[in-house]
């Protein structure tokens, strides 16, 4: 049943339908509505058999999730921005221990300067943490990705981050079909951990590994991520069969057999598609290639999808200072050996709206190869001049 619902509430209900045993919560905008909703679902008995733990920091949130998951409990938490950075040490630990924790990241900028609005700096900063990262284009996608994330995480024994744009998605009300417990039950089997803390069969988890085996441990982590590249579309197809709507895939192409192809992820894809529709009507050949999986990075699939493109624009909502876009660097790696010109466009930092007009102008310039290698969309030169005057 489709209903008009806030993104955070839809995600909370989808998570609850997955029957987590332990949910940890620490407040940070714009993630708060998700854990608030889960708290209510636990307190009112809608989500039974679940411990809701109010922790004292994000570092503790991830640590509690680690302990719970190692004990064989399905564990969930949510965070954003500084909170994700504060749990960074525990993120790498959860991935290294192979614990299938699922976490929502309500994507938000990183300070300083402090900024509560949306961009992808937070999740991108943890791209090498060993977590799978899936990006939602819409609230329906965000809701459905959580169900698939638990399945993927538990099959791969890897933690999964579901990234949804802060405020843009978390606080937006739109029609969403929220999965029911019954539907989820047919898709997500009971959690059977790879190993678990059990006094009857005691194991040592988290031993110290020296130079003689550390490389092999890391190689296996890499291989597991590569295996996930084939499991993501397979589980997406299974989801589609069970739920009657599209499941996750590595890439989301939209008229991608064009001369100019824009690679992007998250909620900006909607605006991009509208822009592309307008450009195509004007005879400008532009398409979109959405990324759902950012980690593992679907390099081969991306390279194949971009084979016919004459130029590639990567729209990043994060910045690697001194480099340019973050995803752009991954696209470069995927396009290794090709001569396709590639442009970085850094847009929408700290909640700056990315308008259809700006995208339209930028893509027309790209189509003429009249774009700088790194472009900051809608850069306010008057503001910069003022800042220089104060310098």
């Amino acid at each position: 049943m489709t209903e008009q619902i806030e993104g955070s509430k839809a995600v909370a209900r989808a998570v609850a339908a997955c029957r987590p045993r332990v949910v940890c919560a620490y407040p940070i905008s714009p993630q708060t509505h998700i854990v608030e909703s889960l708290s209510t679902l636990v307190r009112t008995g809608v989500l039974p058999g679940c411990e809701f733990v109010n922790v004292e920091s994000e570092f503790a949130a991830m640590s509690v999730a680690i302990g719970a998951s190692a004990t064989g409990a399905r564990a969930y938490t949510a965070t954003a921005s500084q909170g994700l950075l504060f749990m960074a040490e525990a993120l790498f630990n959860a991935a290294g221990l192979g614990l299938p924790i699922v976490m929502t990241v309500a994507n938000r900028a990183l300070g300083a300067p402090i900024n509560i609005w949306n961009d992808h700096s937070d999740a991108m900063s943890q791209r090498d943490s060993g977590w799978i990262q899936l990006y939602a284009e819409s609230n329906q996608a965000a809701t459905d990705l959580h169900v698939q994330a638990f399945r993927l995480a538990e099959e791969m024994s890897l933690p999964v981050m579901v990234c949804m744009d802060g405020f843009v998605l978390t606080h937006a009300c739109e029609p969403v079909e929220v999965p029911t417990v019954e539907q989820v039950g047919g898709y997500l089997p009971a959690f059977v951990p790879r190993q678990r803390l059990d006094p009857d069969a005691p194991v040592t988890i988290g031993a110290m590994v020296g130079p003689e085996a550390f490389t092999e441990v890391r190689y296996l982590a890499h291989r597991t991520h590569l295996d996930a590249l084939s499991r993501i579309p397979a589980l997406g197809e299974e989801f589609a069969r069970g739920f009657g709507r599209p499941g996750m895939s590595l890439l989301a192409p939209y008229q991608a057999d064009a001369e100019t192809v824009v690679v992007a992820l998250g909620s900006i894809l909607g605006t991009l598609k509208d822009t592309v529709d307008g450009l195509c009507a004007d005879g400008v050949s532009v398409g979109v290639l959405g990324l759902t999986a950012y980690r593992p990075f679907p390099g081969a699939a991306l390279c194949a999808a971009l084979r016919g493109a004459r130029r590639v624009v990567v729209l990043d909502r994060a910045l690697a200072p001194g480099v340019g876009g973050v995803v752009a660097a991954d696209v470069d790696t995927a396009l290794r050996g090709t001569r396709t010109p590639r442009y970085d466009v850094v847009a929408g930092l700290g909640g700056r709206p990315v308008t259809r007009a700006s995208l339209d102008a930028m893509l027309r310039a790209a189509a003429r190869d009249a774009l700088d290698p790194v472009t900051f969309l809608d850069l306010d030169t008057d503001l910069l001049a003022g800042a220089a005057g104060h310098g």
Partner: protein
Amino acid sequence: MPVNRVKFYQTGSYAVGNRLLDPRSRAVQSDPARTNAITTGHRACQGCGEALGARYVLDAAMRATGGKLVTVNATGCLEVFSTPFPESSWRVAWLHSLFGNAPAVATGVAAALRAQGREDIRVIGQGGDGGTVDIGFGCLSGMFERDDDVLFVCYDNQAYMNTGVQRSGATPPAARTATTDAVGPAPGNAFGQGKDAPRIAMAHGIPYVATATVADPRDLEYKVERAMSFRGARYLHVLVPCPLGWGSAARDTVRLARLATQCGLFPVYEAERGDVVAATPIRAAVPVTEYLRPQRRFAHLFRPELRTDVIGRIQAIADANIARYGLLEAGHD
């Protein structure tokens, strides 16, 4: 050829053997029914107080819980010397995550067990003083405040020994460490306000807080058993001398732990719901110099000149402890 004389009647000693004695008076090692939470072959230094303490704590906890125990360990000596992959000394379900998060991980284990209806399985978190009173303190306080069903044990050797003896929040005044050199007008660690972790734990009003040392293993075991009789957050602070960091002889580990209590610098007591309910009395208070002198970390207080000023300030701390906990009650001196 030298002959070692075997003594069969070592009443009052802590030597191995003594099967002719009453079971309650025997050395703990002589008990054939004891559990083995941590087995031989680990890589702790000779005379390691932490290995000794952890063994008594976990063996007692195993007995108290009928073996239904999960242990969460902070990063540190105990973790490093017990689990060099592919080996492990642990015979209990054991998880190491990070340095600063052991109390929170233990909370997660307890939450999972509760959700699974397995509250018969109990949870111990453990770490050194760095992992407890410094980097893990936020998580520890959170665990206390929520009254999560976890016993957290701090093995306090009073510095970061695993990384090469740097100062921690538990390092005593005037002690020399790798980051508090024994030079200048105020050699060694500063006289701060101290970080009295057991009293801070008590201030949380949790069901049970106790201190103990490796000099009195029966007392240590009793306190673990007592702690396990409560539900909710509990804290046990165990003084574990470190020959490497303290600059003491390996054979002096137990003696130094006993001197620390007998001089008053390390009061041994129990508290319930924030109030002290029992303290182990001192028969006759020994001067702090007896405790300080065998440790090279305090050598600068005795050579090249006797620093009576500094020693006096340390003695004042010991005297204050004796007064606060009533350690020299009438009938004991």
